[in-house]
């Protein structure tokens, strides 16, 4: 997972139905880029059977009763 380019941001915003100007796309790419880079070591490594609800399973099985 790499940081999106302004061009990619513009295309995604268009697809989301909230078009943005070129300068806004550049600013978004600059702002959100570090989050993509920070998550890069995890992205693309998760096992097939893992679903978001696994969080609740861990939370409840490891909760203090």
């Amino acid at each position, binding site marked *: 997972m790499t940081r999106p380019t302004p061009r990619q941001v513009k295309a995604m915003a268009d697809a*989301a139905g909230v078009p943005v100007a070129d300068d806004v796309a550049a600013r978004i790419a600059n702002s959100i880029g570090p989050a993509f880079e920070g998550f890069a070591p995890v992205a693309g490594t998760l096992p097939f059977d893992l679903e978001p609800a696994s969080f609740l399973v861990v939370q409840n099985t490891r909760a203090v009763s």
Partner: protein
Amino acid sequence: MSATEPALMSLTEIAQAIAQKRVSSREVTQSCLDRIAQWQPSLNAFMTIEAEPALAAADAADAALAKGNRQGALHGVPLAHKDMYYEAGKVVSCGSKIRRDWVATTTATALQRLKDAGTVRLGSLQMAEFAYGPTGHNAHYGAVHNPWRHRHITGGSSSGSGAAVAARLTFAALGSDTGGSIRMPAHFCGVTGLKTTVGLISRAGAMPLSQSLDTVGPLARTAEDCALLTGLIAGADPADPTCINRAVPDYLAATRETLQGLKVGVPTAFYVDDLDPEIARILDETITTLKHEGAEIVSVELPDQRQLTAACQLVLACEAAAFHKRWLIERPQDYGPQVLMRLQNGLAISGVSYLEALRWRGPALAAYLAATERAEIVLAPVAPVAAPTIAESDVGNSLDAEAVIQRLTRFTRPVNYLGLPSLAVPAGFTKDGLPGGMQLIGRPFDEATLLGAGAAFQRASDFHARWPEMEMA
């Protein structure tokens, strides 16, 4: 300022004093209103002040008590809350221009439970626009000022809650914490704040920001006060199916615990890196106090917390953009520049990236809990610095705005991503007189241990009992 002013007592003390008729609800409410009238012009902590209705409600509470009818544990206690908790028939601005005149048709479960306990409404408290900002700036209603140093920020997004509790304008206040919004104002303003486990307290009727991360919790003067409030508002709610059906512990009883033998984990990295020297000193002094009180300090090596921060940002930005999509299309001009910028960030996150960040949450929590197995709680600073000035943190929508925000919140976001509880307690002051808070991070649904440790720490220190000698604007 007189130490005998009712407004200067703690929530627990004033609730008992009213119940025992040592002071009337009217006297207490008037004491708060007098302080609000004196300090609101310089602090800007309140969104609305409802003096006459508050006094009328106080009189009704006194009349009921005279007849032997005590409604609940907070009978006649005046409180104000962050202006994002819906109350039917009241304007709830959410700190925004968009909802400036919006009238709620339902009442938030947390708020209703406090009303059922007998509280009196003083008004509503300032906040960051749509709870999306960690500093206390608000493009529409102005910055809230730190009661300890007028030119400094309060932290956000529960900015008014932090300032009003610190200035003794209200005994306590509900805040919300999605990325640090209770703990940051608690740290910057020198009050106690509890970020609760995701699923402990109903979010029904609380303005949403991120459905995966939002939590409801109190800011108050003491851990004991937080325990009292949490015990009243926690528990299952049919209106919020994400709220877990668990028995609510006796949090007040937990505050009578000591620190003897409690295993406190201190991270070897991340939370101790790049600290302002004053915050580093406060951390060291907190460890010394905990040891002196019998706690056992153990080092903990945590998984890479930067990845948690990144995952938190992806989830938060995407969910916030989805909540706001209609207004992003129809009313973008009605957002403040920074909030608009941050909401637009979410447009750049694909569904796949968003879900990947959510899918990792379970394994990330399991890894954290395994790494901290030897500790019952983990100690960490709330933020690497004390409150910056309003001017230096007013970054608007500049190119480095997000970077500034991320630096301020880097110690709070991992906790939100993991959904863990965390109690922020006042732990010292800088040489410039600004408060510094530490967070006690617990295991899922173990607020009781945090509140017990916090209360024991507060019996061994007096930082929570100090109030600011406020400067006029």
